[in-house]
């Protein structure tokens, strides 16, 4: 299990788990505040559970179960928010689920925000363990690969590989129905945006004033049928047309992620999200017209609230990246 990432307290500089709401040293709120200092390389929504919801006990085994009553503790908090400045995101449990099985990680390289969002497959066991392990493994690899000069698509492929290994590791002794998750990553640099994905978590490009589009193509049965020549309306009418055909998990194929790189013609925003949002605003135009202007964290919060108000039947994760990326706060030139 990856140790929860630390960020530095914006007030006193003490290291703190990114999953904590308040600094343990001085009590300052750690989130909902502007970007942590540039020393924070990346953050994620992973955090070990603090207290068993069933019995109140505070000890959990490394496999995530309460030492006292055996209740499975959540792998991540019900709600988390991060704001790194050029990129911000929100994840919420929604109204219907027992656990938040979405996970996300944000990072930055100078002038290049990085995003990984994973959605635990709810029909698998411990989907949250998969999604958290995946984002925690993927983001640092993505970062390192880019630092080493890999093309963003290649870097995302390497991060998917790392996510697969991490999900395999958490599968442990599980039988038949191993933990699995979707994956979408984005690298937003000054000249281009690259998105790579496995599954049905999405990225939308919303240009300021232009025609919005969905950058990703869901790895769904319907799209598979369309790709093999079936007319779209017929494919969508098939039973289980929305079923995932690719995911990250021991029981999944290990081919490379699909990827797209494009150069926007002008400024806009990239929205990376789980289907907890896209199920309510699937069409790019619908999402664009629901996305207000504003700083990334405020926009992510409003889109999350939109999904909650629409029913919130699934976990919701929304990450917002303005393009072109905000200038790096520290001038560590390349």
């Amino acid at each position: 299990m990856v140790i929860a990432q630390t960020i530095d307290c914006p007030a006193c500089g003490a290291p703190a788990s990114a999953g904590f709401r308040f600094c343990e040293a001085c009590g300052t709120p750690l989130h909902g505040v502007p970007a942590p200092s540039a020393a924070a390389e990346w953050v994620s929504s992973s955090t070990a559970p603090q207290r068993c919801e069933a019995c109140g006990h505070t000890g959990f085994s490394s496999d995530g179960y309460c030492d006292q009553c055996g209740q499975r503790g959540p792998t991540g908090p019900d709600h988390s928010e991060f704001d790194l400045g050029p990129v911000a995101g929100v994840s919420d449990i929604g109204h219907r689920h027992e656990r938040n099985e979405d996970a996300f990680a944000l990072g930055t390289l100078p002038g290049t925000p990085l995003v990984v969002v994973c959605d635990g497959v709810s029909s698998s066991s411990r989907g949250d363990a998969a999604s958290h392990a995946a984002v925690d493994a993927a983001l640092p690899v993505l970062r390192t690969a880019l630092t080493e000069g890999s093309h963003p698509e290649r870097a995302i492929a390497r991060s998917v590989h790392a996510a697969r290994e991490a999900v395999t590791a958490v599968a442990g002794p599980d039988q038949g129905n191993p933990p699995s998750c979707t994956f979408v990553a984005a690298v937003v640099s000054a000249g281009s945006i690259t998105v790579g994905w496995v599954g049905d978590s999405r990225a939308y490009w919303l240009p300021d004033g232009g025609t919005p589009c969905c950058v990703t193509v869901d790895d769904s049965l319907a799209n598979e049928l369309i790709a093999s020549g079936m007319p779209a309306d017929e494919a969508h009418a098939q039973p289980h047309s929305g079923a995932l055909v690719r995911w990250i998990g021991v029981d999944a194929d290990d081919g490379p992620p699909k990827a797209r790189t494009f150069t926007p013609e002008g400024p806009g925003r990239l929205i990376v999200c789980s289907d907890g949002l896209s199920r309510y605003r699937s069409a790019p135009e619908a999402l664009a017209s629901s996305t207000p202007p504003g700083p990334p964290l405020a926009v992510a919060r409003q889109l999350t609230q939109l999904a909650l108000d629409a029913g919130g039947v699934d976990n919701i994760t929304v990450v917002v990246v303005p393009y072109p990326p905000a200038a790096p706060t520290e001038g560590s030139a390349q």
Partner: protein
Amino acid sequence: MSPQSGFTAEVYQNPYLAAGAETVDAVITVTAGEGGAAPSPAGTPSAAEAIMIDCSGSMGYPRSRMTEAIKATGVAVDTLRDGVLFAVIAGRSRAEQVYPSRGMVAASADTRAAAKQAIARLTPSGGTAMGSWLALANKLFAEVPAQVKHGIMLTDGRNQHETPEALRQVLAECEGRFSCDCRGVGEDWAASELRTIASALLGSADGLEEPAELPAAFRAMTEQAMGKSVADVKLRLWTPAGSTIRFVKQVFPQVEELTGRRVAVSDRIGEYPTGAWGAESRDYHVSVQVPPGTLGEERLAARVSLVSDDTVIAQSLVLARWTEDDALSTQINDRVAHYTGQAELAEVIQQGLEAREAGDDATATAKLGRAVQLADESGHEQTAKLLRRVVDVEDAATGTVRLRRDASSLDAELTNVRSTKTIRVKRS
């Protein structure tokens, strides 16, 4: 899974429970040395072997019984690895050391030859007190530092020359000190005695049709003992607060009740002995009663680990999930169902044979009929064949049988001693 240790533990269960349900059953398959190579994390463990040969008077009738026993003991001695400590004990009303004259000696060409000379001089005379044989083996084992300590005990009769209480006492002293495989030859041994000894000492019990089978049986037991590569493995069970362990059983390759053998490690954790392991696979059935959870909740009902030297070498999780979906909660895992049937099979065979011996033909017919039905359903051909030695089967599917008047005591004891042997679920 723990590839480094060479052990794997896989769980088979239906984790889904209906609202208010409390019982969680799982079968755990533990495999050591998959792919043939025995795991030996710290090299081959040192071993010691004690061979206890019944030399009571009845071993002389027929003569072949003693001569085959002598031959078999020689084969066992020849099968020992060089350097393995060993001793041969003659069992009568008292135990007497045959070779070496005291203590144990390392196997070599010289000691094997000397042992075989001493064994050849064995003569049948006197009575049977198995507790005294085991007590001597225990004393010899206590004096040597070997990691794997194994005994072979051969008898042709009942434990007539000591009280059952005396045998129980010795077994309690020997438990956990060494393992022991027991074999009966001839027609007068008691399956229940052999099973009691083998169970307590984590070994196997069986009988032989003919004295001529002895050498092969002794070779097999010795080879198996020499193949043990991890000494003293324990099954560790974590269960949640408020739960009750209904039972813990080994269910393959034979049924062994482990429930009462728990050694508490902490409030939540207990350990059960499984003895030494070579390249082999065993199945365990764990049944836990947990406090009912709320719908949608997932709880750990048990964490099952294999532990050697206080290190976890394989682990498996038994889960409980409460659901409103009857289609999920009403399914019974096929392995759990299979072993529930295999355990009942062993029980009804033993009860049926006991009733038969007590002259209660009605109970014997009902129990053995049920056994025939269970053996037929599960495809347990060996047991079905044995049962046909004690009953005539009219209809296996309904368990309609008649007791055979011509069944010998060997037929009954063999059926009894092998009653606990199970088969794995047949892939359909």
